[in-house]
């Protein structure tokens, strides 16, 4: 069930138009109590591509991201309407634990568990029963750290606490932790906002490698970052999906005035 797609099956080199959707949302409305945060959002997320969500603060980017792995379910006052599918299947038909294993998340602030580097990565596979013995756990930890581009730096300090790493390393540790449970989709909410340009470049490079295997949705406030890492960009404004298109088109010739205003810094 939790099979990793092999790269030979990857759609990473296909154009967005030729790529099937991994996640597709239709008519998504989200309410926090009486306040509506998303209005009738339709969005397709192509498999093995990076989709960037951009828009001014409070426009609903994080809200939308949290719909995909049903993180909003835990928010008492939050109500989600509409149809969200993962590989054609309604996410509300899935067991939420299974959904969260298939749809991993990386947050703005690196948030390693107060555990060793090793255990941070081993935690998910253990609770999801992905490994039956110590050797298998080790194997998963090592490959995940390797994929996250962190193995070289931490190989000799796996029993040190995760929090002893630098910010950029912690973020890559969180990515390794997300990868360890073999997800299909990785959601990233401003993953680089606490990082310096070098650490940011490393994560961006990593994102590009990861999309060969996974499907990535990233929220970012940096237009340059969205332009650099994504193939598809969606612009949200006041809870509405204003425009979605190939990243190149959005940043060179957006169709909507509001998109143009936002990406060129002309918002009032």
């Amino acid at each position, binding site marked *: 069930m939790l099979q990793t797609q092999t790269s030979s099956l990857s759609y990473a080199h296909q154009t967005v138009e030729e790529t099937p959707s991994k996640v597709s949302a239709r008519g998504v409305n989200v309410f926090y109590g009486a306040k509506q945060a998303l209005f009738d959002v339709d969005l397709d997320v192509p498999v093995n591509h990076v989709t960037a969500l951009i828009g001014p603060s409070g426009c609903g980017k994080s809200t939308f991201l949290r719909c995909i792995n049903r993180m909003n379910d835990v928010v008492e006052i939050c109500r989600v309407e509409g149809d969200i599918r993962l590989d054609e299947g309604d996410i509300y038909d899935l067991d939420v634990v299974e959904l969260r294993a298939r749809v991993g998340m990386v947050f703005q602030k690196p948030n390693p568990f107060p555990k060793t580097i090793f255990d941070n990565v081993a935690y998910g596979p253990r609770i999801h029963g992905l490994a039956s013995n110590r050797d298998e756990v080790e194997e998963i930890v090592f490959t995940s750290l390797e994929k996250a581009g962190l193995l070289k730096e931490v190989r000799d300090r796996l029993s040190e606490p995760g929090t002893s790493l630098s910010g950029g390393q912690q973020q890559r540790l969180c990515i390794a932790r997300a990868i360890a449970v073999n997800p299909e989709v990785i959601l990233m909410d401003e993953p680089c906002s606490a990082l310096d340009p070098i650490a940011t470049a490393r994560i961006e490079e990593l994102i590009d490698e990861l999309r060969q295997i996974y499907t990535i949705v990233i929220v970012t406030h940096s237009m340059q970052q969205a332009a650099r890492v994504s193939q598809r960009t969606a612009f949200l404004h006041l809870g509405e999906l204003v425009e979605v298109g190939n990243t190149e088109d959005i940043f*060179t*010739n*957006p169709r909507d005035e509001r998109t*143009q205003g936002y*990406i*060129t*810094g*002309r918002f009032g």
Partner: protein
Amino acid sequence: MPESKHIVRAYDEELQTLNELIGRMGGLAEVQIDNAIRAVFEHDTVLAKEVARSDSQVDEMEAEINALALKLLALRQPMAIDLRYILSALRIASDLERIADHAENMCRRGAALEVEPKASAVAGIKRLGKLVLAMLKDVLDASLAGDVDKAVEVWLRDEEVDELYGSLFREYLTYMMENPRNIGSYTTLLFVAKNVERIGDHVTNIAETIYFRVKAKPLKDSLPNRDETTGESD
């Protein structure tokens, strides 16, 4: 320039400066063409020297525009319309620099004029010069105002330049065949006319750049009818 303003005011000011520099450089190029034509046909060597001297001023303006554009690209990381605006400024500056070079070339060629050419031959070249100068003026106005229609209109006028150049070419060839002693002078005139015609080409480049800047697509893709108007087909 785009209608609404940036949140960062200094950004708007820098774009405005870029706009003004293009305007000033364009004005300089106009004067260069005008002076070059007069220098050639009034045998005014002082004016010819003036044209040569001013050419370095044009080069300096181009360098100034390049430096400002580079700074804007690096510091403002422009997107969409702003990015096209800055790229356009670079392209227009480069075309204006080439235009000024052609003006200077005209003066150098013109100095070699030995035999006084026929009045009609001179009138033809002056007409060509006027045509191109008017196109340059209009295209600079279009640039300042971001006026696509005007840019297209200028672009279409280049056909007239090409036709006039073609007929001058045939006229000069006739004079050369009539009397081999004319060959030197009319070859010189032909070079001068060629310079003017090339200026017209750079003006159409600028028109295309303005179109691209505003519409984000090439002008040529949007004018499927030019072949019909010229009666040619491909």
